[in-house]
């Protein structure tokens, strides 16, 4: 087992495998031996083509599933061996925001929905109130607290889902394709809120996405391919290798693709930039 004190490793995945419909004829192997560590404070993007096992991995990190083989250790607790109390502890440590905001709301009043997690933790009412107000403030939805979620945009709903997780004060927040159903404005809203929370609350963020531009916001990129880790590097190195990403069925961010195209035509020779700002600098430098 990984020593949690070392580098403040908070999640340690070792050789995790997971099969759906195990021991039936419909058996599908989603993960075939995945290993990585996530240290406290990391901002990790988990990318991969459809069916690469990303969403399965999100559920493993939260002890919704336990690995068939290998181990997932969250803050020193092996999810496969955790009893009820320890499982609750794992879920308090790692909160997951899912893809469809409509499918994760339990109450018809926004603040009641955000209170659902802390209520389940059995906290005293005054503390729940405090956490709910704080969490709604963090995602910029405090003014809407008495309203219903139905009239809101997708981005706003997803921010409420984030507040619902935040109110449980997790140390790691996993966003499982949480922006996939949103329009560009909603995506930006949500990612801005996530970055703000990361800075203010110091929460470790794992964002699962198939949008390369979103992955470019992270510090580190883990790419899954066919149930295995194909890339695990800092995001600049991982996302600038256009060819390698393409071979995994992934797109590089647009700035990287532009720079790569220029490079192939011999117009440009330096590093491939990953963000729009860097690309602008690069383009300006071309004579």
């Amino acid at each position: 087992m990984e020593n949690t004190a070392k580098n403040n490793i908070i999640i340690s995945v070792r050789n995790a495998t997971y099969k759906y419909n195990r021991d039936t004829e419909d058996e599908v192997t989603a993960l075939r031996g995945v290993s990585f560590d996530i240290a406290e404070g990391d901002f990790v993007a988990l990318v991969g083509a459809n069916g690469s096992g990303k969403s399965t991995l999100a559920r493993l990190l939260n002890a919704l599933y336990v690995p068939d083989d290998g181990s997932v250790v969250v803050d020193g607790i092996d999810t496969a061996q955790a009893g009820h109390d320890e499982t609750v502890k794992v879920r308090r440590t790692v909160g997951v925001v899912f893809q469809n905001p409509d499918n994760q709301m339990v109450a018809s009043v926004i603040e009641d929905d955000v209170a659902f997690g802390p209520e389940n933790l059995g906290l005293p009412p005054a503390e729940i109130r405090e956490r709910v107000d704080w969490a709604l403030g963090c995602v910029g939805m405090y003014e809407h607290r008495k309203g219903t979620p139905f009239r809101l945009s997708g981005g706003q709903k997803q921010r409420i889902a984030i507040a619902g997780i935040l109110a449980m004060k997790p140390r790691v927040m996993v966003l499982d394709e949480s922006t996939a159903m949103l329009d560009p404005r909603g995506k930006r809203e949500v990612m801005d809120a996530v970055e703000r929370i990361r800075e203010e609350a110091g929460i470790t963020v794992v964002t699962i996405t198939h949008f390369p531009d979103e992955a470019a916001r992270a510090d580190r990129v883990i790419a899954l391919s066919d149930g295995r880790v194909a890339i695990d590097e800092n995001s600049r190195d991982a996302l600038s290798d256009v060819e390698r990403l393409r071979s995994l069925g992934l797109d590089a961010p647009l700035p990287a693709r532009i720079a790569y195209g220029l490079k192939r035509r011999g117009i440009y020779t330096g590093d491939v930039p990953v963000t729009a700002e860097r690309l602008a600098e690069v383009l300006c430098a071309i004579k």
Partner: protein
Amino acid sequence: MKDVVFGQIYPVNSPVHRADARAKFIIMIVYIVTVIFARSFMQFAVIAAALLTVVLMSRVPPLKVLSSLKAIIVLAVVTFVFTVLLNKGAGAEAEAFYVGFGPFCICRTGLMTGGLVLCRIVLLVLGPTVVTLTTTPVDMADAIEFLLSPLKLIKVPVHAFGMIMSIALRMIPTLFEETQRVMNAQKARGACFDHGNVFKRIAALVPVLIPLFISAFKRSADLSDAMESRCYNGGKGKTRMKVLRFRVSDIAAMLFSAALLFFILVCVYNWWGWSWVSVMAMGAA
């Protein structure tokens, strides 16, 4: 379709709207018992006056409350007609007014009894209508969960009922939207929902219901994942952010409803032989 008002709350701010939903439910139950015990026009008038006071306080237009009677108009008329026709009172000789035809008759006692039954039905419908017009469905679900809580002693999963009600309420607009989407998708491919006879129309809904069911199941699977990852474990050790607390006004209102019930019971049974009670018996059949 996002503006579906489910339940039928009339959204204004009033003391009745603000009152604790549990208190409103308890008062409603006491009220129903009171109406069932009352047996003279005078007593019904007292109850109606109390109800009217509540309606005026709630700032819901009285006509809006009365319009709920549309739903029971047939029931009320049929009950009235049969009560009148079949009630023979004390017989043709003893009745002040008696018109007989065949097995039926119209007599004074019959008319009085019919009128009382009519009053009772109308008041029984109006009371709960005031509650539904002034309480959000969410509060009602909470109130029902609270009132059922004694059943926990005999191991009835009251918390689960409450959770089911709350999620059902939460999902109504979502599924409504989904229905609309599926119907539009089917229309785009030439489906027709507003032509043909009843059977054809029902048959046309099958291709809407099947995708709707599948998506509802998928949603419920997602929702259970989301709930589990937010540490839901069937409500064990769960606390509440909003602690329900009866206010003085809630308790006063409940006491008042109990007083009304007591008053009507005194009028009906006159345990102490008070003479004024005969006034309240005016208009009894």
